[in-house]
């Protein structure tokens, strides 16, 4: 495992360094359209070729990394904290609160939130700056993405509430928030970790899908999500394998991060 971790560490460092050095590595920038060479295959000038309007794909990947790698984990954190609060607390309190929270999460899981997003877009001005739009999008994703794991957490916390060691802790005088933080929360870790790691790629992809509602990263800014959306129109991957690079990169980075940040107890 150790060697794998070292490798993962190198991968993450290289990717972060490259995205930070994007200005030097890809001086032409992510928006410049090389109109004489749209849809070009990889070449000396364009390492990963160009997209449909002739923008350098390598530059777009680097700049897209900045946005997606920063904001998607932040949104995943928001949703994980929310899940821990709603699910964990409900299970920990039990009784009426548990029933209420479960009803609420079930309802939350079934509502058509698409329409909320459409409404949010309508409330924003049309000339909103790309950064604001991205921030709001990821915030919404974080606020909407917690329900499923909260549901599982409520069951874990419910089981914990009646377990021997919580009763023991109670008997030894530990109560309220301290008991919750010290004894309950750590035991919810497996689900919370899973929630966090699942959310990151899911949010990266959702951000791109929200582009159809005018939310998310606005043109010409790139994001991993919009780079992955390029794959949708591709019937034959064999003809243009370099288009798969953003996907491979995302997978490698995600795996490396996971290997790096996970502890012994919860590995995946």
């Amino acid at each position, binding site marked *: 495992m150790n060697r794998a971790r070292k490798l993962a560490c190198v991968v993450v460092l290289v990717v972060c360094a490259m995205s930070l050095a994007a200005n030097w590595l890809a001086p032409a920038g992510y928006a410049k359209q090389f109109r004489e060479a749209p849809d070009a295959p990889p070449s000396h000038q364009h390492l990963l070729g160009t997209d449909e309007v002739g923008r350098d794909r390598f530059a777009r990947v680097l700049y897209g990394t900045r946005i997606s790698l920063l904001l998607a984990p932040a949104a995943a954190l928001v949703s994980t904290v929310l899940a821990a609060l709603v699910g964990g607390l409900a299970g920990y309190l039990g009784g009426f609160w548990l029933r209420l929270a479960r009803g609420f999460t*079930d*309802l939350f899981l*079934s509502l*058509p939130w698409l329409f909320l997003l459409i409404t949010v877009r309508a409330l924003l001005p049309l000339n909103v700056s790309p950064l604001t739009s991205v921030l709001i999008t990821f915030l919404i994703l974080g606020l909407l993405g917690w329900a499923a*794991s909260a549901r599982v957490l409520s069951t874990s916390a419910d089981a914990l509430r009646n377990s021997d060691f919580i009763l023991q802790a109670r008997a030894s005088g530990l109560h309220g928030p301290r008991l919750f933080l010290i004894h309950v929360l750590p035991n919810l870790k497996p689900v919370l*970790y899973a929630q966090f790691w699942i959310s990151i790629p899911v949010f990266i992809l959702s951000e791109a899908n929200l582009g159809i509602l005018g939310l998310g990263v606005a043109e010409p800014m790139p994001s991993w999500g919009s780079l992955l959306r390029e794959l949708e129109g591709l019937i034959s991957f064999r003809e243009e394998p370099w288009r798969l690079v953003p996907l491979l990169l995302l*997978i490698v980075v995600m795996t490396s991060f*996971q290997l790096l940040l996970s502890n012994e107890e*919860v590995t*995946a």
Partner: protein
Amino acid sequence: MLQPLLSAKTQFWKIAKRVTQKLAAIAALVLLGGLLSATLVRMAPGFDADERELDPSLSAESQLALRQSRAGEHDILRFYASYLRGAIHGDLGTSHALGQPVQSLLRERWPVTLRVAGIGLLLAWILASTLAFTACLWRLPAFEIFGTTVSGAFLCIPAAVLALLSVILNAPGYLAIALIVFPKIYRYSRNLFAKAYAMPHITAARARGLSETRILACHVLPIAGPQMIALAGITVSIALGAAIPVEALCGLPGIGQLAWQAALSRDLPLLVNLTVMVTLVTLLANSGADVMVYMLARGES
């Protein structure tokens, strides 16, 4: 003689009361879900916009009529009340976009989704739990990395691409759903298993030379079981969500495809019914999981 009979009777009434309460809660939530979704749709822009408004051959009168055709839905409470009145008499309204009674649309399309999402979910569970369990059993770093990478890869591929791939490879639609849902189940169950296996008494049991099947059955499942069951409950709604892109791309006439059409045309009667049904399924799946967990806990104590 009288005592146990009485307690059995009170027991029965107790259970009956709980069941009734539960059913009442489900019914209330379903109704609330319908109302909330109707409100969400109504508040969203483009509620009474129709593509035909851009048709230059329509006269001003026809355009006006088009706009007024949804006037009855502007007051959401009134709409919902009349929808409920109809629903009691077995009339679920008529879809705007497809011009057919919602009832017949749902009747035609539920079986498709039920089959595709059902088989997909089952496959996903088999795949994920096998992989997760093997990973825990073997505890080989290489397998660990393999599992993380494979599940990560499927999480990173857009659902539409997976659906498209299934069309390219001529694979059935449920396979795409299975591949979309599988990594999520894997991640959760892998962590739950790992946590359970890391418990001190399991290490002790291993040291005592207990067989792996026994360890799984007697020690791991009791710890991870309840959460796995809860997970099973929520994967139903995850699978229903995955059905939307898969059905649309694979040309499967199911609920997912219908929901997407309804959303794009702001088809209020259809959307309300779909939300009501999805809420019902979600509630039943999750409540079923709760009941199972509850019964397991009782069985143990």
